[in-house]
């Protein structure tokens, strides 16, 4: 199921690890675009105030500025180290190549010139259809330039350990089961106690409480999670001798 719903794009590096890229959808990109529009208008307005004193030459510089903003504003910002225009930065988006690398000058120029095609037939019609229908959210310019607009996800917070004594698992656990129990402990602070109890009841067999439920069972399941994470309390039961890494 997760394969069907997940829009993540995998980019493999030469070192053999897979970078997960999270393509941005229409709404995030639209907000960023509108924000950039406001920024551009503001720059033009500020320039108009300043250049107004110069008369004809000022008007000319304004026209040149409008030209530069229209075509090269995105290119200039995408080639900085952040790889994002101010609007994209505000909404934590970024332009990268399909490989996860920083966008190259050639690709940035191509994707921004091809806006002309994306704009057709009316107000980015083709771009909107393309972003909505494609799983990787590319508009036509992104397709041709082999670029992606991706989310920069916020850092995952460290697991905040509740004060529960660690308990060794009651049976050998496969790596998947270990991951599930640790993930439950990571989510615990964000769940209501009732929901936490329900979820812990599903995993109760890891602490030898299969079939039971309640706050006590939850504490024991969380205790197993802490044990798996590597906590060894002084007052806990002696750790059982299974080698957890090879449990599967």
């Amino acid at each position, binding site marked *: 199921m997760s394969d069907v719903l997940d829009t993540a794009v995998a980019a493999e*590096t*030469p*070192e*053999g*690890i897979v*970078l*997960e890229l999270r393509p941005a959808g229409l709404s995030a990109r639209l907000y960023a675009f509108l924000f950039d529009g406001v920024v551009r208008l503001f720059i033009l307005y500020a320039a108009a105030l300043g250049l107004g004193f110069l008369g*004809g*030459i000022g*008007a*000319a*510089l*304004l*026209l*040149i500025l*409008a*030209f530069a903003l*229209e*075509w090269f504003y995105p290119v200039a910002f995408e080639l900085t*180290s*952040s790889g994002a225009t101010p609007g994209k930065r505000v909404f934590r988006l970024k332009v990268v190549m399909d*490989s*996860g*690398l*920083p966008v*190259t*000058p*050639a*690709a940035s*120029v*191509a994707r921004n*010139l*091809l*806006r*002309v*095609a994306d704009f*057709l037939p009316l107000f980015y019609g083709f771009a909107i259809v393309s972003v909505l229908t494609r799983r990787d959210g590319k508009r*036509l310019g992104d*397709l*041709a*330039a*082999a670029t992606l607009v991706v989310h920069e996800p*916020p*850092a*995952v*917070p*460290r*697991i905040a350990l509740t004060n529960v004594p660690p308990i060794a698992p009651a049976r050998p656990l496969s*790596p*998947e089961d*270990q*991951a599930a129990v*640790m*993930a439950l402990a*990571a989510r615990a602070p964000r769940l209501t106690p009732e929901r936490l109890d329900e979820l812990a009841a599903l995993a109760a067999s890891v602490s030898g409480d299969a079939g039971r439920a309640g706050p006590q069972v939850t504490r024991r399941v969380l205790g197993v999670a802490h044990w*798996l*994470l*590597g*906590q060894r309390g002084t007052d806990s039961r002696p750790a059982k001798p299974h080698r957890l*890494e090879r449990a599967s």
Partner: protein
Amino acid sequence: MTPFHFEQTYQAEWAELEALIDRTTGRKTANDSGARAAGHVPDRDAVRAARSARPSRDDRRATAAQDRVRLAALYRRACEQLALARARAYPAYIIDRLERVTAAAHQLIYHRREFRFAQLRDLALVAFPRSVRAHRGYVAVSAATFLLPTFIIGLLVYWRPEFILSVVSQEMASQFEQMYSPTAQALGRRTASTDWMMFGYYIRNNVGVSFQCFAGGLFAGIGSLFFLAWNGAFGGAIAGYLTERGLSSTFYSFIATHSSFELTAIVLSGAAGLRIGHALLAPGRQTRRQALVTATSETSVLLYGVTVMLIVAAAIEAFWSSAQWLPLPVKYSVAALCWACVIGFFVVQGRRDD
């Protein structure tokens, strides 16, 4: 090895790598705050060392070289640790930190820097003319699509001036007529500031036309063909009309020089668009998408060149073409020289190492 143990064993390396990345990118705030939000305190000593180690340029260069070596080594180790952490299904925050740090280091290590001065010179003097020659078939089709309507509509309007109304409105036609009449103020007595203003106007207008001819290629090349033919027909109609009205000397002396850059640039961007359209229609042994990506990256050199040519064209149009006090022979000989230079540049330049 438990997750905590794993983290304790390697987190000094991760912190060092994070500090190195921050130092290399010169970006401190963003990554620091991200790390702090995640509960990781960056290695203070490494950061302080990075700040204090800036006495001389040689020293800086030496540290930068050391940094690069260390960065690569730490990056490879972090990749290995990430693979281990994933295989052992360690908690999300550990994998997340490793993913972040490897992604950032990956970007630094495989970043391609295209814009150095020598490369820019190569791009302009070798890669651009070569790319034009490599696309000569597309250039020929593009030029034909542009020039045929120009001549056909031009002759048609010259022969029957009323046809101009099927291309432009009556007001526009009379406006053009006024603009190029020998007594016109617009051309005759322009001040420096109007020159600048026209420069701004021309640049915007011409670049718009030219990029349209390129981007239209995404629609199987039909867009490029349409915009090329339309702009050709428009130019031809105006030329035919003004010639019929007897304004040929002001008109041709005005357009002769800058058209060498401007029309060539439009034809070249049309050729780039046709290349993209052709890649979509006949991808050969690649998928359509691969073919599109290849075609786009190979035409990017053309686009750089076209942009520069358009800026040159707008400058000539605003500051030289409009100068009416210059005698016609001078204008026409400069125009001939420009045409010869532009064509010669594409035919001859950059062949030495072919």
